[in-house]
């Protein structure tokens, strides 16, 4: 027994509580709306009540004369602000792109589009003055449905987009897919609608613009998932401000789910207005505005065909999708229904021939862009629904048809038929087996049959999914139409007293990055967890990075930090060697010490080395003072988390109500830095995915009015509406990054909608139901039963 080798307990792998939470849940967070600047004014935006209209005139004189109003501006005043750019266009095809302006000029294209802004001493005055603005609109025809918008005779939104088509993009091999379909024993077809959703973060969006006339600098406090990207886009594309003269700060951000990645009209608007009036300008959306103008998600109409053989083997797949893009092309929207959807339609299955055609379409609705999962939930829902559909036609067990078609472990790295980068690693069957075991699948069919005899309708739904996280490398994503990088950065400083500060280019807003990154640092450098701080959100002191979305913070940002930590350790070894008069090549670093190989007593602790480095009086020749390292990491590939979810439901045929009886999730996100945080991400993701299956639906009427425009109409689930979630995990590390991690932020959402819908449809099998559209509201279920 070697008594002296007591290793410090490792922090990585421990389910510790998030260090972010005490501050937030005790009301001591600092959100944009908590910030008050001296002389700050308040903006209220007049929004179009029409979904499509020409603006004939705007009279702002009464509003401008209202006591307490500082200024009123319209779109005509702001023509020096460029239309917002589209950073991700569908690749390799023409994009008939149109971006919104800071305020609409001459025409409006959706209900809620900004038409004029009032800037006033307080928010109440600003709001009152909106009622005094007179706008003369000439209403035009409206189209809200993406398929209808492409039909002859549909009203045209933008001159450069005939038939309202933004792009027609395809992937896969059409001839090969057609050939495979022709040879298939059976073709299973379905129209699958993935309804529009509204992201609904707890905090709405907002910003404060502050122009400093003394330094000619702009500062923007904002609800952002990607402040560096916002800074870059505002400077280079929207406002033409030199990039070093603009600083973006994201303080605490109260949820986002994708919707806070993008450029919005109000960001340049407050900066521009602040310069004009010489005072800071705050704008905060209310919930109604958030619902009307912040981006929505999903909204696909898809016709899909699977070619299957009698033994259950899927040999071909053809997909045709109308993707509703809304009234303009939002920042990243071109990539969502293309790369992040089309290229993963075959899911976890080895389908040799596939083709996908996507039409991106303008309609008179809010812009659609990434929402938790972004493209992958739509793909995953479609293929998993179709596997069940095929199983029913073949009278095959839904677990068996999945097993039959899974990509096998020896096929990785796996190239799918629709041109995605190779799936990095995977082993799909153990997750399916474990989920089936947890669900008691061996006995379920018998229970189901007995329950049916008693008039009870039980159903079980399986969803085996794969997704794409940490989208990279940059060169590939650019070839897919994204207009910048997708690498990530981290700066690590070990201070004189041995405390560590990390500046990350990511922008966590609920992911727990402060906790997980500190866990990694504690282990890597052998310092106390509480001696590590993770900083983010301010472009003035963090290295350029692309922000937090697409489950990339740990995968890409954590890997950048790992590189910096390695550099710190290398430098620490050199300095320790110098202090110990040892050969640098003989040094090792472990457990918080640099020591001479084979004689662990000849060691310097990281604190001693940090002090020596920070003082800098006794360093190796040529060595710079201070333990400080910055790294940028561009992964060689994306990561591909996977798993199987199972839902068990009971349907009340009298009312159509669905009771979620059990929910089982077996996920593989690689090694877990903090299992508690993974669990939380999985739970939250599942809640959002099952909400799509059960409750949520953004509805526009034929005039383009958002009739699900309040939280009294749009049903996001409460905790009481989400069942107990039973989880387990398999662990298959990713070879695509030094941590082996894969990301867990979106998995729950990507996996869950189809687990629920497959269960509901399974429950309704005795009524002859083979498919129904989401959400499975009581009315929808009841009508489905009664239409049979």
């Amino acid at each position, binding site marked *: 027994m070697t008594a002296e080798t007591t290793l410090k307990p490792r922090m990585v792998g421990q389910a510790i509580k998030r260090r972010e939470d005490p501050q937030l849940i005790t009301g001591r967070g600092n959100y944009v709306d908590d910030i008050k600047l001296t002389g700050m004014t308040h903006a*209220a935006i007049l929004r179009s009540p029409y979904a499509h209209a020409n603006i004939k005139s705007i009279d702002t004189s009464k509003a401008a004369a209202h006591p307490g109003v500082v200024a009123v501006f319209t779109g005509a005043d702001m023509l020096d602000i460029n239309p917002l750019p589209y950073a991700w266009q569908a690749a390799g095809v023409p994009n008939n792109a149109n971006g919104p302006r800071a305020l609409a000029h001459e025409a409006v294209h959706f209900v809620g589009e900004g038409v004029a802004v009032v800037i006033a001493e307080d*928010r*109440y005055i600003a*709001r*009152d003055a909106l009622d005094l603005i007179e706008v003369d609109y000439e209403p035009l025809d409206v189209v809200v449905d993406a398929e209808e918008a492409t039909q002859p005779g549909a009203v045209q939104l933008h001159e450069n987009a005939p038939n309202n088509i933004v792009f027609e993009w395809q992937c896969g091999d059409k001839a090969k897919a057609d050939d495979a379909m022709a040879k298939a024993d059976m073709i299973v077809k379905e129209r699958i609608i993935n309804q529009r959703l509204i992201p609904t973060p707890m905090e709405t969006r907002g910003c404060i613009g502050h122009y400093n006339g003394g330094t000619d600098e702009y500062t923007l406090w904002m609800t952002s998932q990607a402040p560096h990207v916002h800074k870059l886009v505002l400077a280079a594309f929207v406002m033409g401000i030199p990039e070093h003269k603009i600083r973006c700060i994201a303080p605490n951000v109260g949820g986002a789910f994708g919707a806070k990645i993008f450029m919005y009209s109000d960001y340049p608007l407050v900066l521009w207005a602040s310069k004009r009036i010489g005072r800071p300008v705050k704008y905060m959306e*209310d*919930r*109604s505005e958030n619902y009307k103008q912040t981006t929505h998600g999903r909204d696909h109409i898809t016709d899909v065909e699977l070619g299957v053989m009698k033994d259950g083997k899927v040999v071909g797949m053809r997909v045709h999708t109308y993707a509703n893009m809304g009234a303009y092309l939002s920042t990243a929207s071109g990539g969502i229904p293309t790369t992040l959807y089309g290229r993963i339609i075959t899911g976890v299955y080895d389908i040799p021939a596939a083709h996908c055609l996507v039409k991106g379409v303008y309609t008179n609705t809010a812009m659609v862009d990434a929402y938790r999962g972004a493209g992958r939930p739509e793909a995953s829902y479609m293929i998993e629904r179709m596997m069940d559909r095929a199983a029913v036609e073949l009278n095959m067990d839904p677990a068996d048809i999945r097993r039959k078609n899974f990509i096998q472990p020896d096929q990785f790295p796996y190239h799918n038929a629709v041109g995605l980068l190779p799936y990095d690693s995977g082993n799909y069957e153990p997750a399916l087996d474990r989920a089936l075991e947890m669900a008691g699948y061996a006995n379920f069919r018998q229970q189901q049959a007995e329950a049916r005899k008693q008039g009870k309708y039980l159903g079980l739904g399986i969803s085996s999914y794969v997704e794409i996280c940490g989208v990279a490398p940059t060169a590939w994503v650019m070839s897919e139409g994204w207009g910048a990088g997708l690498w990530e950065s981290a700066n690590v400083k070990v201070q004189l007293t041995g405390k560590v500060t990390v500046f990350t280019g990511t922008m966590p807003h609920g992911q727990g990055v402060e906790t997980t990154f500190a866990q990694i640092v504690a282990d890597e450098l052998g310092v106390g967890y509480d001696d590590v701080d993770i900083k983010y959100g301010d472009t003035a002191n963090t290295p350029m990075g692309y922000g937090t979305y697409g489950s990339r913070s740990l995968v890409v940002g954590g890997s950048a930090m790992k590189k910096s930590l390695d550099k710190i350790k290398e430098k620490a070894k050199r300095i320790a060697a110098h202090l110990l008069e040892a050969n640098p090549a003989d040094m090792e670093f472990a457990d918080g010490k640099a020591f001479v190989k084979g004689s662990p007593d000849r060691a310097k602790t990281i604190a001693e080395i940090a002090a020596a480095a920070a003082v800098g009086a006794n360093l190796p020749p040529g060595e710079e003072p201070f333990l400080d390292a910055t790294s940028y990491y561009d992964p060689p590939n994306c990561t591909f988390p996977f798993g199987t979810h199972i839902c068990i439901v009971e349907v009340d045929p*009298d*009312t*159509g*109500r669905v009771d979620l009886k059990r929910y089982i999730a077996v996920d593989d996100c690689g090694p877990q830095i903090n299992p508690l945080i993974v669990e939380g991400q999985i739970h939250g993701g599942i809640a959002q995915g099952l909400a799509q299956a*059960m*409750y949520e*639906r953004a*509805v526009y009427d034929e005039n383009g009015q958002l*009739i*699900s425009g*309040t*939280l*009294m*109409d*749009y*049903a*996001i*689930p*409460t905790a009481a*509406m989400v069942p107990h979630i039973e989880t387990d995990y398999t662990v298959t590390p990713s070879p695509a990054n030094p941590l082996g991690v894969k990301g867990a932020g979106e998995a729950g959402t990507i996996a869950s909608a189809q687990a629920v819908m497959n269960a509901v449809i399974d429950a309704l099998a005795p009524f002859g139901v083979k498919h129904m559209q989401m959400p499975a*509201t*009581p*009315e929808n279920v*009841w*009508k489905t039963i009664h239409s049979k």
Partner: protein
Amino acid sequence: MIPSSFEYFAPTTVAEAVSLLQKYGDDAKILAGGHSLLPAMKLRLSNFGALIDINKIHELRGIHVDGNISIGAMTTYHAIESSDALKATCAILPEAVSLVGDIQVRNRGTLGGSLAHADPAADPPAVMLALDAHVHVTGPGGNRTIAIGDFFTDMLTTSLQPGEIITSITLNPLGAGEGAAYSKFPHPASRYAIVGAAAYVKLEGGKVSACRIGITGAGPKAERQASAEAALIGTDGSAEAIAKAAEHAGENMDVLSDIHAGEDYRRAMIKVYTRRALTAAVERAR
């Protein structure tokens, strides 16, 4: 979500409140729990120059059970759902209000406010119809009592006259042979009723001698179901009799249709929930 400006008054007596109502006329509004009024003002669906907050009028609060049941207009749902006296004499009411919204709504919302507002999807109106309640009001002309059957006149409209305030609601306690129950299909977002059915039955000598059914959520206002009630009276209250009677629910009723539930579905649910409420009411009456 930013209301327009208003003047705020907090009288301590009913008389003061009535005179303020008279003084400000159409521009004035009573503020009770605020859970219907304030959302409408924040969305600027309605704007009022003067809010008369009656929370400080203590005589409007409280539950009194002796010969009959009297509930002050300003009694909150929370007070009702936690009242042992009501659980013992009129269990349907605490049960029904425990299904209103969420705990925050129940801590603020009041029975008087609910009836005065006459939201077509509110729960209390259906229960009040089934229990044949009386609404007591005070106005410029003094006090009067309105039978609940005459109270709801249309969507968001009642027979309250300008300047009148609801002071209390009275009910008869349920005795032997009587039973009442409420069955609700809540809206998943708002928790309001998409359909709510309140049923009261009296059994005498093994036969249903009286029946009242109130339906809310489905139409422009909460309504009694005369033909379903008539179909049950005189029967033995068996499952079959209930099922038959429930088939008449919704007859002669205007039924709403919206994105949450179309007319066909609401009509079907009126029957299902009537059946469920009647079944539970009969069970209790036995």
